């Protein structure tokens, strides 16, 4: 598939990555504002880092940005699957490699010689965030349209179950985001690669 040997990330990947980043930031910050309307986990998110101004504004942002996440996510997954990249880049994830590479990563000794190939920790993290995003979209769908999707609603533990799943999936996404950004800071070449492809 790769025409240029030096290409690390093809253009479609870079575009969908940055569109996804925009969608995630809008959704998470507006979602925090929506969460603050009830604070059902017992704590509030500082208002200064939320988006929307008030509940109605946050809902408008959330229900606008969801289309970007959804459409861009579908596009990303489809291209990934049909080009064979999904299978090539993310699988297999071998438990033994995962353990040794996780150990190396925690000691700061994990090598990043070739950015075209992901190590097992990266593979797991990226597959996790794909899965987590799908869970976010599906649980969000139940919260938005709980009556129209009865099977999905029951699978996710009803409206209240879906609400908690949506929250924890958000927390998982935020955890990924933090590690992801820390890794980019530690290996800045990855940012350049995601911007210009090489």
């Amino acid at each position, binding site marked *: 598939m790769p025409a240029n040997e030096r290409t690390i990330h093809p253009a479609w990947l870079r575009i969908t990555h940055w569109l996804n980043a925009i969608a995630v930031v809008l959704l998470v910050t507006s979602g925090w*504002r*929506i*969460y603050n*309307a*009830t604070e*059902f986990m017992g704590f509030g998110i500082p*208002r*200064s880092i*939320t*988006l*929307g*101004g*008030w*509940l*109605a*504004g946050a*809902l*408008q*942002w959330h*229900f*606008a940005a969801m*289309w970007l996440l959804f459409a861009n996510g579908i596009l990303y997954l489809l291209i990934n699957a049909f080009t064979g990249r999904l299978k090539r880049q993310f699988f297999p994830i071998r438990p033994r490699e995962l353990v040794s590479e996780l150990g190396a990563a925690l000691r700061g000794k994990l090598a990043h010689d070739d950015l075209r190939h992901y190590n097992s920790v990266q593979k797991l993290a990226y597959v996790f965030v794909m899965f987590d995003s799908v869970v976010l979209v599906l649980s969000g769908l139940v919260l*938005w*349209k*709980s*009556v*129209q999707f*009865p099977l999905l*609603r029951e699978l996710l533990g*009803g*409206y*209240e179950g879906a*609400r908690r799943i949506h929250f924890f999936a958000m927390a998982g996404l935020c955890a990924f985001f933090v590690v992801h950004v820390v890794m980019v800071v530690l290996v800045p070449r990855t940012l350049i690669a995601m911007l210009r492809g090489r």
Partner: protein
Amino acid sequence: MTKRFLQRDIVIPGEGAAMLADAIERIAQPSRRDFLKRSLTLGGLTLLTGCATDDQDSIEAALMRISRFNDRVQGWLFDPTRLAPTYPESMMTDPFPFNAYYSEDEVRDIDGDAWRLELSGLMADRRPWSLAQLRALPQQSQVTRHICVEGWSAIGKWGGVQFSHFLRLVGADLSAKYVGFKCGDDYFTSIDMATALHPQTIMALTYNDQPLPPRYGFPMKLRMPTKLGYKNPKHIHAIFVTNTYPGGYWEDQGYNWFGGS
């Protein structure tokens, strides 16, 4: 909705000027005055920057357009035969939460004997109805989940007249787009005809088998388990059928109009 969620705070540094200009414009609109009192803070004034008002307005306009687009998507997703889940009475939330745009000590006291339900718009028989007349119609009850736009939900039992039965009885134009409601607490809202005709949409006269108490909307509220709480108006005294978009108290301020699940 409770008051504490109405505060419009500064979110992104630099939005201050745009928001202030926007806010001044809104003072002209009576429905906005109340929350403006609580939103124009010193913090908002100190965040004044050179940010253009036009940007803020165009973003708000774009978000509003997407919200109206979402109304159409929701109308398209809405299956008129799909029922909201029902629950055993043992699962009822007790006490069922009070919620309105005002606090519980401001609940209106409405005289049930003097009350009349006024009808207008696209319907054949616009004679007003008394509470006794409505109670004489066939009644049904439901134990369903009320979902608030704030995120919380609670299960309650409502009883009353199936709205589709009533609309047919008065010869309403069932091909019209909207049904609007005016309420004794100065609230107003409107719904799509498909939801008005949904089998679980009822003109609720009782809560937990007792006449609807004032805090839950005496003498009548519209109960729709397929819609969020703010779409379920209380203390209704007028119903109208129309093809002109009627909006609503919260909807005009930015809450999604369809507001349904």
